[in-house]
């Protein structure tokens, strides 16, 4: 009987390194008690993990007896979530200090949660999906409630926790049903056992429960109720982190599980998925129209973006098309991540203590007093709305192309209409910035400015290289097939 070998650790080096690093940081924080040291070391660890991930690009391997798969798809998500973690840390440091809750464990919790998102992208076994989901979520519950003695933040944490654990229950029950129907939880064994199963209804029910559970995580309607409250109550850098990484992790697992294990139920799921997409786009966008608080507005906008990503997922069952579907999801996730971090950086720059500076009126006069910052915000909002020449346009373009190739013209039309509606509430912020007078209070700080500049340049510059990015993403996907 062979145990685990060193190869397993080498193959999963980005994850194992990050987890070990986080454990070391727990000790560093316990003895040194300096949050700035922990923050710097956490950032160093993330950068090292990015290097380790990139070094593994193109190598396809599996580890721990097939529990984890490390392929281009996983590496793409690794780099995405690690980079997002790095940006979140840059956004957090000054913010946490000036709001008065600079604590080192914040960064450690973030590292653990990132490791969870990476495991979700690599999970080749349903039980790993469950464990990774919890590793991603449990630190996030704490981070959402991180503000001491603050009712809004604690409430956000509690709501996120109760609904997240509820969703975890669905995922687990779904896995148990699939185990019952196939006697396996390994994705390849599951797909091999599906044709001979005696209880196909368990497969369908299990897949549906998995979809519900992961749907909670990525916040598609009707499983989105927690999103606006949690996004509003959580510290803003945590919101930025949650919006990107929890979504990326959720979709990463959703795509891998459904494409590798459940192509057989795709036909049954198409109407359900289409309904979810349409509901998400309609509810997300209409509710965003009514918001006055910018954090809530971005929360609903992130719900609608989950709807867009889900749109590509509808086509996953069509042979010859799922490569395109996954590629466009990866590209869209990248576009969403870059744009989202930029816009949250601007929100953080304007946010004041005790939740002030978060209404649209607080953006009045920004265009005149801070032309560079408001130009950056304009770029992000245009990218969210999908206007060229921004990354967001590229994301939507490839997405709609995939959906049209799949023959879902109606869905594509709903998507285009939804983008039009979304332009309205994004442009409302622009109108406040440029056509209203006011005295905006802005925090200017190197790390914050760096994130804003990087993402603003990235949003436009990366668009010019969309072709190459897309090629990279599709190369990443090839391994999945």
């Amino acid at each position: 009987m062979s145990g685990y070998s060193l190869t397993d650790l080498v193959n999963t080096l980005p994850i194992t390194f990050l987890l070990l690093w986080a454990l070391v940081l727990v000790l560093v924080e316990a003895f040194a008690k300096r949050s700035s040291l922990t923050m710097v070391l956490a950032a160093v660890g993330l950068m090292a993990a990015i290097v380790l991930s990139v070094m593994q690009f193109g190598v396809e391997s599996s580890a721990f007896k097939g529990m984890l798969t490390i392929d281009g798809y996983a590496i793409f998500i690794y780099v995405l979530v690690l980079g997002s973690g790095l940006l979140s840390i840059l956004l957090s440091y000054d913010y946490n200090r000036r709001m008065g809750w600079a604590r080192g464990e914040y960064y450690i919790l973030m590292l653990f949660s990132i490791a969870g998102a990476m495991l979700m992208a690599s999970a080749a076994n349903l039980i790993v999906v469950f464990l990774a989901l919890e590793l991603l979520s449990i630190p996030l519950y704490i981070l959402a409630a991180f503000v001491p003695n603050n009712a809004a933040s604690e409430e956000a944490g509690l709501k996120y926790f109760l609904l997240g654990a509820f969703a975890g229950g669905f995922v687990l029950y779904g896995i148990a049903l699939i185990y019952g129907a196939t006697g396996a939880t390994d994705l390849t064994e599951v797909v091999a056992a599906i044709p001979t199963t005696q209880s196909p209804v368990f497969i369908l029910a299990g897949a549906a429960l998995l979809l519900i559970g992961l749907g909670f995580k990525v916040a598609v309607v009707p499983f989105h109720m927690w999103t606006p409250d949690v996004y509003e109550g959580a510290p803003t850098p945590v919101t930025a982190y949650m919006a990107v990484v929890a979504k990326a992790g959720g979709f990463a697992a959703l795509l891998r599980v459904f494409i590798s294990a459940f192509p057989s139920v795709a036909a049954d799921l198409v109407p359900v998925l289409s309904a979810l997409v349409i509901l998400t786009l309609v509810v997300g966008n209409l509710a965003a129209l009514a918001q006055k608080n910018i954090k809530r507005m971005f929360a609903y906008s992130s719900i609608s973006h989950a709807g867009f990503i889900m749109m590509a997922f509808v086509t996953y069952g069509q042979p010859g098309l799922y490569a395109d579907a996954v590629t466009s999801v990866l590209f869209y996730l990248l576009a969403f991540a870059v744009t989202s971090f930029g816009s949250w950086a601007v929100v953080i720059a304007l946010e004041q203590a005790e939740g002030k500076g978060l209404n649209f009126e607080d953006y009045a006069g920004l265009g005149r007093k801070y032309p560079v910052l408001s130009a950056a915000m304009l770029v992000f909002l245009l990218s969210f709305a999908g206007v060229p020449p921004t990354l967001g346009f590229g994301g939507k373009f490839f997405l709609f192309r995939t959906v049209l190739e799949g023959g879902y013209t109606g869905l594509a039309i709903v998507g285009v209409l939804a983008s039009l509606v979304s332009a309205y509430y994004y442009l409302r912020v622009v109108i406040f910035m440029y056509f209203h007078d006011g005295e905006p209070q802005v925090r200017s700080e190197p790390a914050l400015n760096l994130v804003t500049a990087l993402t603003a340049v990235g949003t436009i510059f990366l668009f010019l290289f969309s072709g190459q990015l897309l090629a990279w993403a599709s190369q990443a996907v090839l391994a999945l097939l």
Partner: protein
Amino acid sequence: MVPIDYYVALSAVLFTIGALGVLTRRNAIIIFMSIELMLNAGNLLFVAFARMYEALSGQIFVFFVMTVAAAEVAVGLALIVAVFRTKNTINIDEASTLKG
């Protein structure tokens, strides 16, 4: 030996009770207990199927799930205590600082 169907039915009933509890109860602790019931319904299913397939894997998953549930209890109860300290209530209908 008790037929597998009985186990499946019992676990489905437990899961439903748990899910309904989450949706209808207003006390955070009771909601949390209902979630634990859902997890345990999953555990029961795993153990029953492991017996049916005469495989150990299902039984081992239960250990993982119990570990995760323990971690969730630690975080969840801490959150509930924190909310209680600030607001003096754990009724989630009164947790309405955030809305709109």
